[in-house]
Every structure is written in structure tokens, then in C-alpha cells.
């Protein structure tokens, strides 16, 4: 490709070193090496091989972000030279992701969550104090070394309020901090040492009835031997006994459906990929858990990382994949460390790589770190992101099972879905299906946060009611009354105090006009200003819309504007007109957006209006 580089922008030595670490040294002077050494004056490689490196764009951008704190024009030029990408194209990718900076940014950045769950625990007050004592977001510290930004949900809702501190440098540091106080954030901004990563206790730890969470908080997540002592890798051994067809049969018999929100039958998806003649097949583990209020996958990955790797290996074996990508949301540094360690351990013990467990099956996992884009959890946007492009969802059909990652048949599953497979294989499909209900088999992880006595990740068998779950978590604390429960996150819907007997199953939630979605159960007591919470949800979607479909790009803005007017008590043309506008915009987004983001961007807002009557007539 003939590339036009940004004029007068050369990388620094430090930027080159950062890129060499992730891409290896340049192959020739044409790829950024020293000018015309060896035979470079008379030959150059490139073409298909060079363009096939495109998937390294996001890791390369991360390398600069982590080392330098931002991506300079010189650094971007160098990436483009190394990977044969037009700088305008790479800029388009870099600017897509919120965690990547294209303007100078200090090495030390604190992201402070301002999303729904943290609001229940004082994040607004914390932010107000930061603004007062430090300055508005983006303002530099006196020595220019630090700043802070507001952030959407950081996935630490059980320990709200949360922050994520990033320190760029030769040994970059990313660490979640939760719960935090304004004083703690100010200390971080002043150069203070971040505290240890928050521990990951699950409230039910040790409960013998747990299946998905049974090792979390019990087995040492850093030890493959402890994992094996707690039943690890028995499922993979059993899978090899069953053979790929046997695994497919058990997974189909289990009636396991996807836990990412769409509830598609996993066995059907796997079989479709396994039967595709095109090769290679790819596996993608969707660990881009970004739905506000969701943190269960993080708990699994931090607390039982080997289970995720083992489950991916079984999925790959059944569907004929030799390479799996684990796409992890960028705000989960602890999960990344746990998984990278687990992958290395599994490799060194022969559970990954060539000839897994001596069974003649080869499989490896690449971990890809997202960079702050909610949309990348969409099952086709995740492909685009892995391929090194803007995370814009694709049109369907063709579906991923036919044309997925790199245009090849791809099975894409959420972390929780995959971990369920361990139980399916260890027992049997029918045994798994015997738990739960006809339409919802097995158990479900639910993320309890907000105004609840014991927040955290809970595992309940399908069939329990919302009331059972709230009782398990100790109910609303402080003698307050329950106002509402947000089910399924920003893309979900609200239930009121009268809806507590809804069964926590896919069909039960659907019948109640809501969704289990990704398992968010955000409890709101009567102190919560619901209209303002809706405004925050609307702002979230406006920010996260990829902008590809006009109805979503424009509709999310119109929705937020209407809510702002309602909250300010200044409806345009009267309350009824505004509510009709919100409903119409929502319908338009549902009808005409190609992906789930646009299709659900109004669900929480509309459910609050319809079910909770948050804007009662006469109020404004």
C-alpha cells in the first residue's frame, strides 16, 4: 500500500522501543528500521503478509498508550509504517476508543466512575469534591503529571464507588481502586501509590451448591495445581473421551443458552461452526463485559481464570478451532494479569499449544485488550476490533458462524456461557438440563449492586424469584424502601416494588416485560433521583453509539435532550409531547439500527416511563 505519513512526525526512541516490544524489531528499513541496511535498497517484502498484521493495530496502540500515556503523531506514523496502514485509517481506529488518547496526556490518569451503581454510593459527591479540590476533569496537576476523567461503569459495582488508575511508563501500571474516597483519588493524583487491587470475595464463597463460582475465593487463581486439585482439567479430559461430536451432543442436550444477553442456544451455534467447510475456524471469548452494572465475568476471570481457558479449549475442540481470541475489556487489568498468567501456566503444562494433553489437538489463546468501547461487546463489533478496525457492528446475515472473525466461521461466546460448559461436559447434557426450568437450564450469575446489604456476584438456579435473590443479598439496607430494580443494565428495563415475584428465568423476565440480559440486578432505594439516573443512562448511550446507523447516532442524542428538558422541568410542547417523542425515537432506533445497542438504547428509559411513571402528569 502506498502510505502518506503525517508530515514532520517521527517517533521517539521510547516509542520505537514500546512498539518493538509488541511487534518485534522492524524487518527492514521499509518498516521503520535503520535506513537501507543490508539488501533493503534492492528488495522489500510486504503485500499480503504485511496487511495480515493489521490485527496488531490495537495492541500497538496500547503499547504507546501504556508506555507514553498517549499516541503521538510520530508514534502513529511508526505504527502505520510497521503495519502498512494508512495513518488516516489508524487515526480513525485510535480515536474510536475512549482509553486511547490522541492529544498529549499526562502519564498518570485516574478514571472515576460516574455510572449507575457508583451513583448509589456517592460517586457524584466524590466527583464534586474532586472538581472543587483538584479541578475539572482533564485539568493537569500542578506538576503536569496527572489528571482525572469521568468514566462509564468500571465493572466494580459491588465495591462502588470505583476508580481506575493508569500510570504510563516503562513498567506501566493499571489498577482498579474500589471503593475509593475523594481523598484517595486526590492522593493518587498527587503521585500516591495505588492501593492493592480490590479483593474478589463472592458472598456465597464455599457454598457447596455452587457450580460456576465453586472455585472463586476457594482455589488459588494463580496456581494450576490448585485449580486441578479443585477439579480443574477434568472436563477437558472428559471432552477428549467424548470426542468433538460427543461434546456437541452434550452441549445441545444441556439446552445451554448464551449468557451474554441474546440467550441463543450454544449447542446450535457450536454445531453450525463445526459443520462449516471453510477453514480455519475461530473461537472468540467475549470478555468485553461493559454493560453498566455487570461484573460477574470479571469475578470469574479474576477468581477462576483457568476455568475460562479450559472452557475455551473444550469449545475449540468441539468446533474445530486452533486459535481463540479472548477479548477483554480494557478496564480489567487484574483479570488480564490473571488470565495471562493462567495461559502461560496452561501452556507450560501442555494444556494449551501443540498437542494438548497429548491428544493430538492444538489450540492456543490470544488475549486482546479492549480500549474502552461498550459497543465492542457486540458479537460482530468484537471481530472488527480484533481485526484492528473501528469497532462498528456488521450487518447480519451473514452470521458469525459462517462469516466471522477474519471472514471465517467463528463461534463467539460470553465468559459465563463458556464456563457453564465445564459442568455440561463433566456431568452430562441431560443432567445439566434437569436443573432450572424448561426454557432456562442450569444456574445464572447475577450482579447485585446498588442499595443492597451484601452486593456481589450471586449464583442462583434458574427459577428463583427476584425476591429470593434480594433476600439472599440482605435486602435494602438502612431501613429504606425499595424504589425500583434495574434488570439487565442500561440496555435492560426497570421493575418496581410490586414485581418482586418475577421468576429469574429468561422466559420469566420476558413475561414480565424485562430481561435478564447480562445479569444486572441494580437495586435502587427511595433516595434515588430516577429521572437523573435515566439522564445518565441516556448519556451513556449517546457516548457509546458507534455512530454508524443514523437512527442510533441521532436518536440517542434526541433522547438525552428530551430527558434533560424533562429533568429541568422545561418540556418542549408539554409533557405528553416529550413522552411521545421519546417513544417515537425509541421505536425508530429499534426498527432501524443494525445492532443491539441502538435497538435497546431506549428500553430502560421507556420502561421507567411506562412501568414506574417517573414523569407523572402534572409534575412538570
Amino acid at each position, binding site marked *: 500500500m*502506498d502510505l502518506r505519513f503525517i508530515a514532520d512526525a517521527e517517533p521517539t526512541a521510547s516509542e520505537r522501543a514500546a512498539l518493538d516490544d509488541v511487534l518485534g524489531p522492524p524487518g527492514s528499513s521499509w518498516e521503520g528500521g535503520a535506513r537501507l541496511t543490508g539488501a533493503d535498497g534492492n*528488495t522489500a*517484502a*510486504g*503485500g499480503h*503478509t504485511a496487511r495480515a498484521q493489521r490485527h496488531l493495530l490495537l495492541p500497538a496502540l496500547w503499547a504507546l498508550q501504556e508506555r507514553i500515556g498517549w499516541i503521538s503523531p510520530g508514534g502513529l506514523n511508526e505504527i502505520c509504517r510497521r503495519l502498512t496502514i494508512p495513518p488516516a485509517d489508524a487515526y480513525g481506529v485510535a480515536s474510536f476508543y475512549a482509553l486511547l488518547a490522541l492529544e498529549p496526556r499526562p502519564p498518570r490518569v485516574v478514571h472515576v466512575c460516574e455510572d449507575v451503581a457508583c451513583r448509589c454510593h456517592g460517586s457524584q459527591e466524590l466527583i464534586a469534591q474532586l472538581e472543587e479540590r483538584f479541578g475539572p476533569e482533564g485539568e493537569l496537576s500542578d506538576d503536569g503529571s496527572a489528571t482525572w476523567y469521568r468514566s462509564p461503569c468500571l465493572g466494580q459495582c459491588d465495591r462502588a464507588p470505583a476508580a481506575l488508575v493508569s500510570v504510563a511508563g516503562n513498567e506501566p501500571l493499571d489498577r482498579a481502586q474500589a471503593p475509593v474516597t475523594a481523598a484517595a483519588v486526590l492522593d493518587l493524583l498527587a503521585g500516591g501509590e495505588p492501593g492493592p487491587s480490590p479483593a474478589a470475595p463472592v458472598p456465597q464463597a464455599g457454598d457447596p451448591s455452587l457450580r460456576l463460582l465453586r472455585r472463586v475465593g476457594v482455589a488459588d487463581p494463580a496456581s494450576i495445581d490448585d485449580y486441578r486439585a479443585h477439579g480443574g482439567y477434568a472436563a477437558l479430559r472428559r471432552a477428549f473421551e467424548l470426542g468433538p461430536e460427543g461434546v456437541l451432543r452434550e452441549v445441545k442436550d444441556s439446552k445451554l443458552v448464551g449468557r451474554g444477553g441474546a440467550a441463543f442456544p450454544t449447542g446450535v451455534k457450536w454445531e453450525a461452526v463445526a459443520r462449516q467447510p471453510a477453514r480455519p475456524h475461530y473461537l472468540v471469548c467475549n470478555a468485553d463485559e461493559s454493560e453498566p452494572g455487570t461484573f460477574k465475568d470479571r469475578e470469574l476471570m479474576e477468581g477462576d481464570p483457568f476455568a475460562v481457558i479450559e472452557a475455551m479449549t473444550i469449545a475449540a475442540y468441539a468446533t474445530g478451532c486452533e486459535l481463540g481470541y479472548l477479548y477483554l475489556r480494557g478496564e480489567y487489568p487484574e483479570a488480564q494479569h490473571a488470565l495471562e498468567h493462567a495461559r502461560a501456566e496452561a501452556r507450560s503444562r501442555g494444556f494449551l499449544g501443540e498437542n494438548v494433553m497429548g491428544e493430538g489437538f492444538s489450540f492456543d489463546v490470544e488475549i486482546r485488550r479492549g480500549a474502552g468501547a461498550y459497543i465492542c461487546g457486540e458479537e460482530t463489533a468484537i471481530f472488527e476490533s480484533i481485526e484492528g478496525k473501528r469497532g462498528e457492528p456488521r450487518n447480519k446475515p451473514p452470521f458469525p458462524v459462517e462469516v466471522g472473525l477474519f471472514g471465517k466461521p467463528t463461534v463467539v461466546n460470553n465468559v459465563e456461557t463458556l464456563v457453564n460448559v465445564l459442568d455440561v461436559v463433566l456431568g452430562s447434557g441431560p443432567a445439566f438440563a434437569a436443573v432450572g426450568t424448561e426454557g432456562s437450564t442450569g444456574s445464572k450469575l447475577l450482579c447485585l449492586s446498588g442499595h443492597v446489604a451484601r452486593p456481589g456476584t450471586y449464583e442462583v438456579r434458574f427459577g428463583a424469584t427476584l425476591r429470593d435473590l434480594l433476600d439472599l443479598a440482605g435486602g435494602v439496607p438502612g431501613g429504606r424502601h425499595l424504589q425500583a430494580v434495574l434488570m439487565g443494565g442500561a440496555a435492560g428495563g426497570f421493575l418496581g416494588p410490586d414485581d418482586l415475584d418475577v421468576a429469574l428465568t429468561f422466559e420469566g423476565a420476558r413475561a414480565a416485560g424485562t430481561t435478564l440480559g447480562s445479569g444486572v440486578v441494580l437495586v435502587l432505594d427511595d433516595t434515588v433521583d430516577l429521572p437523573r439516573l435515566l439522564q445518565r443512562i441516556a448519556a451513556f448511550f449517546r457516548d457509546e453509539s458507534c455512530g454508524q446507523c443514523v437512527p442510533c447516532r441521532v436518536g440517542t442524542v434526541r433522547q438525552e435532550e428530551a430527558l434533560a428538558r424533562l429533568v429541568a422541568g422545561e418540556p418542549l410542547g408539554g409533557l405528553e409531547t416529550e413522552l411521545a417523542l421519546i417513544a417515537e425515537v425509541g421505536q425508530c432506533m429499534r426498527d432501524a439500527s443494525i445492532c443491539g445497542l441502538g435497538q435497546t438504547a431506549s428500553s430502560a428509559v421507556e420502561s421507567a416511563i411506562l412501568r414506574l411513571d417517573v414523569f407523572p402528569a402534572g409534575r412538570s
Partner: protein
Amino acid sequence: MFGAGGGTSSYREMEETDVILLWGSNARETHPIIFHHLLKGVRNGARLYAIDPRRTTSARWADRWLGLDVGSDVALSNAMAREIIHAGLVNRPFVDRATEGFGEYAASVEPFTLAEGERLTGVPAEVIGETAHAFARADRAMICWTLGITEHANAVDNVLALINLALLTGHVGRYGSGLNPLRGQNNVQGGGDMGAIPNKLPGFQDIERDEEARARFEAAYGAPVPPHYGWHLTQMFHAMERGELKTVYVIGENPAQSEADVNRTRRLLAELDLLVVQDIVMTRTAEMADVVLPSTASWCEAEGTVTNSERRVQRVRKALDPPGDARDDMWILCELARRLGHDWGHPTAEEAWDELRSLSPMHAGMGYDRLDALRGLRWPCPDEDHPGAVFLHERLWADPVEGPRAPFSVVEAKPPFEALDADYPIRLTTGRRLESYNTGAQSNRYRSPLHRGEALELSPEDVERLEVSEGEVVRVSSRRGSVEAPVRVDDSLRAGLAFMSFHFPDDVDTNQLTIDATDPKSGTAEFKAAAIRVDRLEPAEREAGESVREPAEARG
């Protein structure tokens, strides 16, 4: 090749082939439409090998760039051939059945080991080997070339060397495999097809050897056709030099700026008894003419046909009346004939085309009605039921082969005519750039932000060695002339290699530097290889600075 002069493949085949050798062509800039077809092929998985001294914008798309030294094309081809033979990758059934002269050819390339290839071309031995293997092992492979092959004093040998590679591997006469010279204008191919070459009648019928064809033309014209070849352009200038050629009628050409060694060209044109120029713009040549005949833009002011690089004849329709006194080319020719005593009348374009169809068998089936209905037809198209040929030379795959066998040619690897020495140590190669067109007679008449003016492109190494800087006006000299041009640093050039175009001859008369060493068979001069030196201007000259913008005449 093998008779008719045209690319063997259709554009569609470029999109569906497996390996493309793009040899001596910066098609990305100079044939952008064809390059789109090539890029479709690349997107469909074809591997692209770019063979060019410069790492051009085309080469940057390639899976492998072979940056051979200027003029070492035959050596590279021979080294590839030897590797193909020694690796057992020769298509034996094809070679045995459809070709002749393999034994002699194989013996001739025997000295060209990969190491010798590296020594002669500068391209690493393993890269030559890799390219040879990729080409020979491909199910489909084609070679596309342009002036990097033909603007050399050994142009014909260069082309024959490429043909040898195709014969060796059977990459000709089959779908997706072929030999394709890319044509620089929309109707270069059509000009040759219509007999605007000194040795062929329309339809590539040989003037000397094809008596039957000559008789057919004589019967139709009612006049004898001289049974001998005419002069090609270079021979015409030699004839002018000898005083044998005193009257020249130039149609749509600007030799006063486009020929190599233009100082000599202009002198010869000035010494003519009569120079007539027929053109759509007032070219430098027209300025020298005794008579100027303003004619029409063939793509919008005239009816007719054009033929593109895939041999597809297409209709052109008149959309505008020409301005002023401009007249249709055919009207001018017929009127000239009438005034010289031959009344041809004023036939329509279709009537002239139908006369051609009656005389050129390869065009016989291409009536205007079919050209309209089928959006053009590829020759040969011998009758009205014929769909036109997708690709040429399928006959070579008949068993036994139909017609004569295709001959291998023994070609000698000769260095460029002008060797580098201490006085002229830099190799200048010339070419075209995306935004401009030849002498700029057409493309310099409008403003474009892409026009950056002429410059001497030098490697960073030479810029440093010469102690010059970007934008500095320097004197560029060859044994034939000297021009002043600003320096432009191009980091895709290696030390000792320089590049210029001749798009702005009024500012920088690049062809004062080039050499008219000419291939005796094709008549093409060696625009691609001159020896130059670069000197800094004296401070006083530098202050005069803008001298580069002076008209060329002022510098003599």
C-alpha cells in the same frame, strides 16, 4: 508477440489470476484504471511482484519488490529462467508441444546462476529464486509491463526475455495467464491496430511478407501499396539528419519535448523544409510548424472507436462541436487528399470502419451495431457470430499445436548504453507521475493542487553526499545537455539512483539529459537510463534562483 501486437489477457483475468509480475511499470500512478483491476486481483488473493529500480507506489502494494539496477532486466529474467529450469519447474508438455528453441535457450541462460543474477541486478539471490518459484508454480500467472521494459536500447530483447519466462512455464494462452503490455493512452492499442506503425497494414498484416493482404488493400484502394516497411520515429530523425526526410506531418505528437535528446530533435525539426502539425492544443512542436491544423478531441468532438489494453474496441460518440476552426481529423485527411487530387469524399466514421472490417480479418465481426449492443468487442473477432477473444494464443494449447510454434529467443544481458563513470556517477531514470501526462501539453493547461512542478528526485544519501537540500535548485547535467531543477528528497530511492519526469518541459527540459540510444528493432530510445552529474549552483546563480521558471529557450 507471436504476430499481433496486443496484450493477451482480458482485464477480468487480472482479477482472477494468482501471481502478477508487474515489470517496469508504476501502474499505480501511470495506469490507475488497470491498477484497479490488478488490485481486485490482489484482494482476491493474487500475489504481486513489482520489478522496478524504484520502490514506487505500485511496488508498495507488492508482496515482494525486486529493486533491480536500471537496465538489468534481461539478467533478472535469465536468472529466473535458469532457476526454473534447475528446480524442475519447466512446463515440459507445453514446451515440448508448443515451443521451439528450448535447448538453445536453456544453454544460453545456464551462466545466470542466482548468485550471478544478484551480481548483475543487485536483487538478492534468494529473492530472485523466490520470485521464479512463485511464478513457475502458480496455476495462473501473468506478466504486465510498460515503459520500464520498452524505453531501453534493448527494448525488444527485454520483451523477448519476458516472453521466454511465459513460454517456459506455460503462462500464456490460458485463462488467467498471459503477457500484457499496459497501454499508456486510451487508444495506443487502436493506433497500432489501424496500421499506424511502419511495418504493418491495419490488423497487423505484414506489408512486406503478406502479399495476399497487400493485394486485398490494393484492390480496395485502387492504388498500389509499396511492398516495403516505412521508417519508425527514430529512423525518421536519422533520415532528417541525412537530409533524406524534408517534410514531416505530425498528428497528435509533441516530439519537440517528448523525444530523448531534445536539443537534437529541435534542431532537426527546425531544419525541415516543411513541418505540418495537426493537434488539439498549441504544442511546442506546433509552435515550430509551418502549418498548424487544429483538430478535434477524439473523445468528445468526434465519432469513432478506441481500443484499450485488453484489445476491446469501443465506440466513441461526438458530444460537442469543436471550437473555432478546429476540424475532425478524418475531415482534414480527406480534404487534404482532395486538394492533392484524390477525392475520397467525406465518409462517416462508420463507413471508414466498415472499410477496415472488409480488409482486416481480426475486425471483420465488429459492426457498430454489435459494438453498441455488446459494449465493445475484443479482437480477434473474425465474423458476426464471434463473441470476440477473451485471451490470445489459445491455439498453443491445442494438441497438436495449431499454427507455428512459439519460439524461445536467446537474449543477451547488456548493460545500459551509457555507463556510469566518475564524471557522470548517478543513474537517472525518467518516468511519469500520477497527476501529469507526458509533456504536459494537456495536463499543464489546468490548475491542480497535485501539480508540484518538476524536480530532481534524489536519495537521502545522495542529498547528503552532494551537500544539497530539499528545494534547492541544482544543475543536472548529462553528456548531452544540462538543466536546472529543484531537489526533492525521495527516501524510496537508493544511493546513485535519481528520477525525473518530463511533464514540465518549459520549466525543466528533462529530455535534454536523456540519450537517444535506440533499439534498432523497436525504435524506442533509452529514456530509462542516462548518466548524470549533479552540481550546486554558484551563489550568484542561486540568487537568480527562479531561473528554473525561465522558458527553456532562454537557457539554450
